[in-house]
Every structure is written in structure tokens, then in C-alpha cells.
């Protein structure tokens, strides 16, 4: 893929504009989380002070967390803290949310990256195949598979897989990231698969791969399904296109027609879905991580939400939103790499 265009002057301006827009959106997101946290009917100070706290203890907690200040001042402090990477403290545990996020996010990112790889590696070829065998049995099968993939409740599917592959067959571990007996290594990236490779530790790699398979499969299924469907319908369109007819008439071999000439065109809309699905995947981690006890931001958000502890939930919301924005930015740039018309526009 030709990425040199990124250094074009026009392109630099384009990227800068996109980054500026992302910055504005990020500020909007900060505002949104602040608004959500402050329309809450429950009292975070009461939560921080504990269930048996008296009135004075609650007031003390309120002062301690800065909750007694007027809202504009609270907002400025919130923005200022965020600018320094400080997400506040969890009122339930008293720990720094920023530090928690730094610990949990790599686990979620690793899970999503593996799941997305499964989605791409299975979804795109299957989509191509069902476009080639349109309205034949293979196409009907993948259609049922794809619609099922979107309809299956991930938490239920996860439980079924645990039951089948962990409890009954005993092939894979039920939950967690590593066995209790294994000492987790000092994190480099925080992603175990990557870290074990960096450290040259194949046993650790194998162990963490075993743990990640089931949650990654569950997480990837809806993503795989939509990549498959979009890729299929786009391939069907592209295979009908005039330029394919012409290339066929000129003697281009069938596999290149499909795998290069048509696929390249079909990848444009597929890319858009991949960007969108990355966000969906990030949000599905709350379910999958809960089922598999995967120590990532999803599980962190859910357990904090149940406890009524806002700061961690807002921190996760911000991190996931930021991640989604970056993913969309990458998709936009890949669009430019794929479509020469955009590069010159």
C-alpha cells in the first residue's frame, strides 16, 4: 500500500484538520461526561463516605473530593486534571482512576486487536466467497451464519463456549488472562501476547493465547458477521461493474479480477464498517469481559457502574471514545491510501 501521500502538503493539511476536529470532539466528550456525572440523582459524597457514614462524614467527603465547589469550578478542575492525565479517584476504592485505566486498558486493547484480526481474516475471505457463489448454498449458509453472528447475545454465547470448551471438553481455560499459578510478567506494553514475544517466552505466549481464544472469538463474532455481509454485498456490486467486464474482456485472469480488481473497490465501504465495528467491539467488551473475568476496562466500568462509582465509568467512557475517534482517523487515512481520487481532491 502506498502511504507516501501522507507526507504531501495537501495531506498534512488534511490530517491536521482531522486532528483538530478530533480535538474539538474530544472536548465535547469531556463536557458530555461531566454533564452525565452531574445530572446523577445519587450523591457521590455519600458513597465515598461509606454506607454507615453520618451527615458530617458525608460533608467531609464532599469537601475532600471537591464536590462542594460550584459546578463551573468543578468543571475547570475536571478539565485541568484530565489535561494532566488525572482522571480523579475512585470513591469506592480510593485508587487513582488514571492508574487503573493504564493497567486495564492494554488487556482490553489486546482482546480487541485479536478479535478484529479474527474478524478480518475470516470475514473478508468468506464475504468474497459468498459473493462469488451468490445465491448458491454457500451464500445461504454464510448469510445465516452472519445474521446469527449479529443476533447471538455475546454474554450467552460466551457462557455456552465456557461450558463446552472449558467445562466439558476441558480444552481451554474458563476465564481470566493467566492461570493463578503463573506470575504475570512485568508489563512492557501490557499486552501479554506481545510482551511474551518481546521477552522470548513461548510458554507464556501459549498460555495467554489459550486464555484469549474464547473471549476473542465471542467478541469477534458480530464484527466478523458485519464485515462478511458488507464485503459480500460490495463484492457482488463490484463484480458486476463495467470495469470488471472490461478487464475480463481484455483477458485478465479470474483470480486477479476478484482478489485485486474487485476487492480493492469493495474494501472502501468495508473499511467504513471496520471503523464502526471497532467502536462496537470496544463497547461489547463490557459483556465479554464480565463473562470471562477479563481484567480490562469493560469489567472495570461494569463493576464501578454497579457500585455507583462515576469516576471510573467516565474514565472508561473517555478512553473508549478517544480510541474510537483515533480508529476513525486511521480509517480515513486508509481511505486516502486506497482511493487515489481522494488523494488528489
Amino acid at each position, binding site marked *: 500500500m502506498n502511504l507516501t501521500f501522507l507526507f504531501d502538503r495537501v495531506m498534512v493539511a488534511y490530517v491536521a484538520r482531522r486532528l483538530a476536529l478530533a480535538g474539538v470532539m474530544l472536548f465535547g466528550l469531556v463536557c458530555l461526561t461531566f454533564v452525565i456525572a452531574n445530572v446523577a440523582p445519587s450523591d457521590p459524597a455519600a458513597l465515598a463516605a461509606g454506607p454507615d457514614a453520618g451527615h458530617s462524614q458525608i460533608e467531609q467527603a464532599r469537601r475532600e473530593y471537591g464536590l462542594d465547589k460550584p459546578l463551573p469550578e468543578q468543571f475547570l478542575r475536571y478539565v485541568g486534571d484530565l489535561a494532566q492525565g488525572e482522571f480523579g479517584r475512585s470513591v469506592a476504592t480510593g485508587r487513582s482512576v488514571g492508574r487503573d485505566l493504564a493497567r486495564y486498558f492494554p488487556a482490553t486493547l489486546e482482546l480487541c486487536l485479536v478479535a478484529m484480526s479474527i474478524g478480518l481474516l475470516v470475514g473478508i475471505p468468506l464475504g468474497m466467497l459468498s459473493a462469488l457463489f451468490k445465491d448458491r448454498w454457500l451464500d445461504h449458509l454464510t448469510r445465516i451464519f452472519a445474521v446469527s453472528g449479529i443476533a447471538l447475545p455475546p454474554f450467552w454465547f460466551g457462557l455456552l463456549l465456557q461450558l463446552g470448551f472449558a467445562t466439558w471438553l476441558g480444552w481451554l481455560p474458563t476465564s481470566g488472562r493467566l492461570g493463578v499459578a503463573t506470575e504475570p510478567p512485568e508489563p512492557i506494553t501490557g499486552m501479554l501476547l506481545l510482551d511474551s514475544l518481546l521477552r522470548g517466552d513461548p510458554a507464556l505466549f501459549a498460555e495467554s493465547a489459550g486464555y484469549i481464544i474464547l473471549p476473542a472469538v465471542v467478541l469477534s463474532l458480530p464484527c466478523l458477521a458485519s464485515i462478511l455481509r458488507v464485503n459480500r454485498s460490495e463484492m457482488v456490486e463490484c463484480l458486476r461493474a463495467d470495469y470488471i467486464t472490461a478487464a475480463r474482456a481484455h483477458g485478465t485472469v479470474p483470480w486477479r479480477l476478484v482478489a485485486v480488481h474487485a476487492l480493492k473497490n469493495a474494501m472502501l465501504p468495508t473499511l467504513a464498517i471496520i471503523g464502526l465495528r471497532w467502536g462496537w467491539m470496544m463497547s461489547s467488551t463490557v459483556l465479554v469481559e464480565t463473562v470471562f473475568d477479563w481484567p480490562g476496562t469493560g469489567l472495570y466500568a461494569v463493576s464501578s457502574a454497579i457500585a455507583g462509582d462515576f469516576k471510573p465509568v467516565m474514565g472508561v467512557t473517555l478512553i473508549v471514545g478517544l480510541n474510537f475517534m483515533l480508529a476513525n482517523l486511521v480509517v480515513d487515512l486508509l481511505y486516502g491510501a486506497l482511493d*487515489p481520487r481522494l488523494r488528489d481532491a
Partner: protein
Amino acid sequence: MSPGSDGRSADTRGELNRPRETLLAITDYRLAFDSFDGTAQVLDGVSLQLAAGETLGIVGETGCGKSVLARSLLRLNPAPPARVVSGSIQFEGTDILTLSEREMRRLRGRRIAMVFQDPVSYLNPLLAIGPQMTDALRGQHAAAREAQPSRAEARARAAALLASVGLAEPERLLASHPHQLSGGMRQRVLIAMALAGNPALLVADEPTTALDVTVQAQVLALIAGLVRDRGLALLLISHDLGVIAASCARVAVMYAGTIVEEAATATLLRGPRHPYAQGLLAAVPDLDRPDHRPRGIAGSIPNLLRPPPGCRFHPRCALATERCRVEKPLLRQVAPGHNVACHHA
């Protein structure tokens, strides 16, 4: 545009009208399209002959089946919905309708090549010109089970082809994408691609319709020059009698899926015998006689799902009698080399 091609004469009549061995013989070819509304008899018993090096134009209104006929020669009509009902298409002695797809690939580009109507949609927007041409070249070698030229060799040949159709800076063109070229340049590129396999028959489907008038003349001159220099047989499809008169020695008039008249171009222009051909000529504006208003043909093309019985033109024909409503007129010779399908001719 480069000057090279413009000096060539568009007038190749007479010189190419010598009898030669038959290259293409279409006999009673019937093609139907199946749809929800029923079966459309798109081609209804077409018979045509073309000798090596001969130029034949097919003229008719939009929807008369001339493009479908052109695509039939390379078997590019998607099936389904297209379905061959009967007839044969003999090319160099073999019936291409009986060939396998693999054998057909050996003909595409190598023996029969095609130039398309709208160069924007017939060039892949995401691929540079170079790979589109080299893929075609290498594909032709693969289909013929010959050793494939290396990418560099194929590229050099592509550059030479571009130069041969009068395009300057072929190396730079190979690296360009279709959207960076003008309409005339794109059509030249498509013509160069069609010439890549050194074919015996060039099928040109409305090659100038999508172009500006001034560019039209250049492209027609280019095609005429190539036909003359390379001894190509040409089947030129157009709705414009002027275009055909400028490039073809013989002309066939098509109406609603049948050939209604076939003659030397000069003969037909001087004295058309079929009422439809007469109407078609009367509809052409004459620049020399601005006072002479062109006349249209009353009525419109019939619904091919329920074509009129007998002569398909009879509902629009002033001469129609009871016989025309019942009996389909067959193509018969009215003078040497002049065939008409009309009971009244």
C-alpha cells in the same frame, strides 16, 4: 492529444471491401433475458457474416440489442439472466457458444477484443493504468498457457501500446490513475488495452458516444488507422449513422433484436429499402440542408417481453399489411450484397 493519429484518413471504404475468408459467422442467434416479468426475447434470430479485415457497422436505437450482440461475441452477458435459446456464433471455424469458460479466455483479448462505451466506468478507478494493462497482458499469456512475461517486460509492452495509440509520455501514464486523464485519453488507453493481444477482431461498442464531438473525430480516425494498418476486422456498434459511415464499409440496421437490412454503407445511405432504415436516415439532420427538418419515427421500441407478432416493426410501419402482422419477414437478398427483411422491399 498527440498529433500522430490525426493525419490518418477516416475513409477506408472500398479498399477493405474485398472478399476474404469468413472470420465471424453468426447464424440465427437467439438470446433471452429471464426476469420477474417474464422472458425478454432480446435477440431474435440474428444472422451476420464478417470477413477477416472487414469493417461492419451495426446501427439501431438504444435498446435494440446491439450492445448485447457485441457482448455475446466475448460471452460477457451475465448468465443468468441471459440465456442462449438457439443459434451459433462461429469464430475462426469454432462455435464459441460451445466453448468452456477456460477456452473462451484464450480468445478474449487475443483473438477478439472489445472497446467500450464509457471510458470512465470501464477503467478501474482504484488501479493505475499500468497494472490494469499488465494484468490483461499477463492474463492473456496465462490463458494461452505460454510463459508469462515479467512485470517489467509487460510494462514495457504496455508503454509501447500506449505510444502506438498516440499517447505521449507513456511511462508517466502507466503510473496515473484514470481520474487524472481526459475522456479522450481514457478511450485511447482502452483501445491500447484492446490491442494488447494483437486480436483479429475488434468489437467497438459505441466507442465515441461518451466523448466530446472534437475528440470523437480523433478517436474514430485512430480506430480507422489501426484497422487499416493492422488488418483488423471491425465490428462497430453505434446509434449514430454518421459514425458508422465514417468507419465502416458495410452496415447492418438492427431493430428490436433483429437485423432488418444489411448493405454496403454507400448503398444503404443512398437507397435504404427497409421502412425502418428509411426512417432512421430521415431522422439524421443534414448540415448541408438546414431547411430540411429531420423527421422522427412515430411510436417507440416494442416491449420485448411481449414483442409484436410477425414483423416486429409493423406497429410503427406505414406500409404494414395483414401479412406483416402474422408472418415474420426473413432476411433476403434484394441485390448483390444487399439484404432486407421486409415483405414490401
